[in-house]
């Protein structure tokens, strides 16, 4: 497994619901922007299948998900319960 593995946006949202209570997510012209804990991550890609947030099918690379978790100060152990491949 490498940083280039992918995670569906639906799985990321499930993780945020559980591990980043109070977060906000909005979609801009180019990215998803997530805010949590007084910090923001405005560069989460829309994914290989476009915006896809409603269907949950848009795919985002593991390296980008891990960077977002670190930047927002989300508990990594909690995140790994939803996305075990973060252990790459």
């Amino acid at each position: 497994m490498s940083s280039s593995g992918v995670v569906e946006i639906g799985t990321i949202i499930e993780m945020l619901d559980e591990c980043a209570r109070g977060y906000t997510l909005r979609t801009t012209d180019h990215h998803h922007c997530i805010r949590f804990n007084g910090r923001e991550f405005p560069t989460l890609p829309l994914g290989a299948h476009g915006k896809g947030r409603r269907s949950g099918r848009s795919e985002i690379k593991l390296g980008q998900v891990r960077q977002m978790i670190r930047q927002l100060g989300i508990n990594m152990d909690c995140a790994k319960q939803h996305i075990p491949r973060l252990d790459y």
Partner: protein
Amino acid sequence: MNYPLFFTYNGSIIGQGYVAEVSARGRLLASIEKDATWLYGVNPGAIAVEGENLEAAHVQFRETLKETFVDFAAEASSFEAFKERIEGFVNAVNADTEMEWQEAVAVVRAAKLAMMQLEKLDADSTHVCVTVVKKDLEELTPKDNFAATTDDALKQAA
């Protein structure tokens, strides 16, 4: 293998009724994996991109940075709000990635490693900076249509 880098970005962004010249220098951690090269932001910490090699990752990084600045411009109600958003974004440090960046600096110094033929900058005395300046119409030239310049090459921290 991880390499500590500095980047520079110089480009014009068109906002709501203004043109802004954005200049930034920040830190990136290059991670060479078997199938790709990743660039993780130290500051700005809220960015990570990949490419099939360092050059491709750098192109993707610049593209992502520009798209992010355009998103900021679309959401900002004024030039001042846009400026504040960019400054906050570039200066936001990713603490975990910064720790890895410092470790990588120690490794390349100890082993005298060089990444490709990148110019080197001193990791201790080179500082992160960002400026956002409103440009008057009279200052604009056709060169403002092109963001990338030779001054924006990646440099290795050492």
